[in-house]
């Protein structure tokens, strides 16, 4: 399988008030192949989000190397990318599309698709500050689906809206990911990991503590949590 994303001996240190070289993680080796869905599992604060940011070219690692296959676009799937409360849902959706790298024409064309997916009626043309949390999440999910990158990094953003919308969002996401796109998914939802991913990686104490089938790694994660006093 061709690797679209390769991390070799990657480590990350941050400067904190108590510790000028706080190690978030170290010695991470990971490959993500074309069409593969990999789950990244670990406790809060284990460095999952930071690792996704390294993969998404937002942070450079302190040491080690990250390589992306030539011409491959990698991006984080995010809800409500830079939403501005005083602008309408339509304006915010348009702006989000531009931030995702779509051209002016592509962004304009995407609006009807986003409006249909969000299903929030005339609120689409109202300022986002008047939205309920569920409506914001719908708009966020609708715009996030316009992400056309080959490697998608998802950071615990799938459980949004009411039951009916969650189902719609899950179906839409699985449809989007059905092609040859690769996914790295950070999630605590076991069923989601088992259904979507072929492989899982457990990040614990700044290192990869386990890697393998989602069932095995989830069992290892459960055991790790169980061991915690």
């Amino acid at each position: 399988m061709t690797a679209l994303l390769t991390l070799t001996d990657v480590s990350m240190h941050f400067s904190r008030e108590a510790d000028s070289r706080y190690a978030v993680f170290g010695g991470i080796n990971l490959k993500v192949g074309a069409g593969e869905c990999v789950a990244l599992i670990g406790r809060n604060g284990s460095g999952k989000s930071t690792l996704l940011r390294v993969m998404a070219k937002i942070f450079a690692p302190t040491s080690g190397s990250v390589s992306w296959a030539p011409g491959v676009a990698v991006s984080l799937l995010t809800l409500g990318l830079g939403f501005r409360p005083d602008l309408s849902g339509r304006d915010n959706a348009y702006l989000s599309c531009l931030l995702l790298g779509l051209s002016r024409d592509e962004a304009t064309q995407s609006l009807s698709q986003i409006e249909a997916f969000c299903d929030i009626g005339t609120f689409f043309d109202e300022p986002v500050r008047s939205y309920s949390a569920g409506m914001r999440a719908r708009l966020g999910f609708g715009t996030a689906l316009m992400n056309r990158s080959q490697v998608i990094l998802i950071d615990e953003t799938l459980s949004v809206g009411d039951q009916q919308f969650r189902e719609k969002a899950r179906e839409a996401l699985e449809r989007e990911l059905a092609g040859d796109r690769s996914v790295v998914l950070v999630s605590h939802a076991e069923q989601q990991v088992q259904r979507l991913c072929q492989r899982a990686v457990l990040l614990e104490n700044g290192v990869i503590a386990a890697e393998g089938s989602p069932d095995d790694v989830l069992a290892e994660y459960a055991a790790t949590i169980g061991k915690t006093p």
Partner: protein
Amino acid sequence: MTLSQAVTLVDTLARFHLKGESRQYFLGYLWWVLEPLLYVAVFYLVFDVLLGSRQPDFLYFLMVGKLTFIWFSKSVNQAAGSLEANKGLMAQTNLRKELFPLAVIHQGVYRQLAVFGFLICFLLMGGYLPSVAWLWLIPLALLQAMLIAGCGLLAALLVSLRRDFRLVIQLGTVFLLFMSGIFWDLNAIADARLRDGLLVLNPLANLIDCYRQVLMLGEAPKAIRLIWLLGESLLLLIPAWVAYDRLQFWIARQVVTR
């Protein structure tokens, strides 16, 4: 992201921000002109009504100076906080970091176009006759935009290093307010060396004097003064551009993990 996409994004960010901002206020877009005019009114009250300025046509003199200075001070101060203000976006996308201060600076350009329109109408109503020399307003405004871009980009970079620079930059713009001949005439400095030194060291003083020369006296500015302005703007812009090019990851880490 291609250059054309970056330009589209900066322009859209600027226009949408202005649109959102105007919706927060009852008087909306009118504040673009009202806010600087209120500053002019305060300065006029203090320096002319209370202190009795001896400057002929003081109101027009003050307006040309203050309305162009506000463009600089507001844009640079807003650009200084722009990276911090877009922390959330920076944590989610790997957009070029200079786009954030540039979008803020671009907002200032839109506002200033309205302010220049108002200023010209006001000068015409005050009996100032338009002349060919007024066309110099275009290169002067372009030079000011370059100067703002250079200062704004560097200011944002410094604030991403340490928040303390935000306060230093605010104080710096207050210092420039007093040193740029906004409510006093630089040409009144008797010592020619001191006057020339101030014009060279402070590009804003040079710019404001050139604006007055063009709009109030109907004269073209001296070429050497424009060359100085261009040189100083490039002296700020080029290192800023190089710094952003090399520090993309560093900026994201500084701002996101703070």
